């Protein structure tokens, strides 16, 4: 299985571990992720205005180049890249005027949404399958109580959702197949405050804190995500709590690929088990 792989701006610096664990997991699962020689940032947010196509030039170019390379699909890991690229794809497929504007501005070729934009989670679900994945598991994630955290970008808007946007199962099914206990909690699809943490940190912390509290109250000892910004927000608020409450025990925030790497027996990741502690459950 060979796919074009778009890492995005954050996977070579802030979330190196996300990139590296995903690469190793893909190798074990037989997914060949080929990174293009040249790529540029997707823009991180999809424009919500409808009268300006400029912010879509970059993701459009990424998709166009993948098509020119004869790619059968574009894999992303970061939720934001997934959302921006998939929305751009959806737009050029359904809006001929905007497609022509982008094509004529770039003048690098024609593109009408032919390249499927896929998240690694979808490849595992649809191309590999959980049954085949279970056969490759070396370490079952016994004792882990995972709170899957979707956030916004994997599910909204509905036309680009990687699963049922009102009741997604993709993370739950993945972790169940790895042998972990998966928790239901009400904040799994609620925004972590995203980029608000740059402009209004106090407010962002309050929003992220509710997600953390909800997961911990339902018994989580780790929260799994696929978005570097969610990872940051959920960690950052806990660092702030520790500053004022020295008894607070942090709940581990982790990328889903790290958990996969542990389960597949990749030895560089075996230590992850040790770093996961059990936070104090306030509801008892």
């Amino acid at each position: 299985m060979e796919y074009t792989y778009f890492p995005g701006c954050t996977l070579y610096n802030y979330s190196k571990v996300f990139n590296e664990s995903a690469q190793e997991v893909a190798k074990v699962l037989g997914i060949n992720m080929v990174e293009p020689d040249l790529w540029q940032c997707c823009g991180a947010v999809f424009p919500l205005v409808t009268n300006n196509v400029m912010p879509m030039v970059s993701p459009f170019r990424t998709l166009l180049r993948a098509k020119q390379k004869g790619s059968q699909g574009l894999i992303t890991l970061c939720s934001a890249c997934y959302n921006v690229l998939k929305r751009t794809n959806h737009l050029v497929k359904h809006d001929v005027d905007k497609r022509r504007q982008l094509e004529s501005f770039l003048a690098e070729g024609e593109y009408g949404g032919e390249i499927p934009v896929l998240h690694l989670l979808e490849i595992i679900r649809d191309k590999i399958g959980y049954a085949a994945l279970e056969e490759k598991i070396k370490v079952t994630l016994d004792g882990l109580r995972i709170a899957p955290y979707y956030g916004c970008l994997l599910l909204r808007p509905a036309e680009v959702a990687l699963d049922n946007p009102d009741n997604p199962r993709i993370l739950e099914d993945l972790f169940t197949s790895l042998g972990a206990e998966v928790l239901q909690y009400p904040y799994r699809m609620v925004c972590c405050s995203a980029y608000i943490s740059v402009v209004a940190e106090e407010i962002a912390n309050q929003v992220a804190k509710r997600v953390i509290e909800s997961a911990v109250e339902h018994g989580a000892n780790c929260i799994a995500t696929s978005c570097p910004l969610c990872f940051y927000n959920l960690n950052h608020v806990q660092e702030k709590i520790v500053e004022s409450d020295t008894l607070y025990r942090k709940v581990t925030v982790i990328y889903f690929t790290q958990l996969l790497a542990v389960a597949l027996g990749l030895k560089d990741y075996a230590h992850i088990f040790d770093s996961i502690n059990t936070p104090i459950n306030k509801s008892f």
Partner: protein
Amino acid sequence: MQIDANFVEKIKEISGQDIRVCYQCGMCSGVCPMSHLMDHPPRILMILLQRGVIKEALATRTFWLCASCLKCSCYCPRGVSPSQVMEAVRVILLKDANYRLKYDQLSTEILTTVPLQGLISASRKYF
């Protein structure tokens, strides 16, 4: 800043959203993860814009605190997308440099710890 008399029309032009079809059910405020922290929840912003109370609408923090999570847009029974309306309001105000993100006022902590994804998103939304 000069406020256009046809503000609602302008929003429609920028975002494709017709505010006038909003019937004030409050779904957007209910599902918004930020509404309890806003001075006015999204529903109030919608009615202020609808009734042409533009100055008061633009004085709220509502649209500056929108994280574009799209919950309101997904659940609106009238098919309006409040998050797109808020982006249109931001786009109009950001023509004035005073409203833009001031990079020199961001703390070193933020500039060094927030992942690029966050900094780029904020630059896109507030500049």
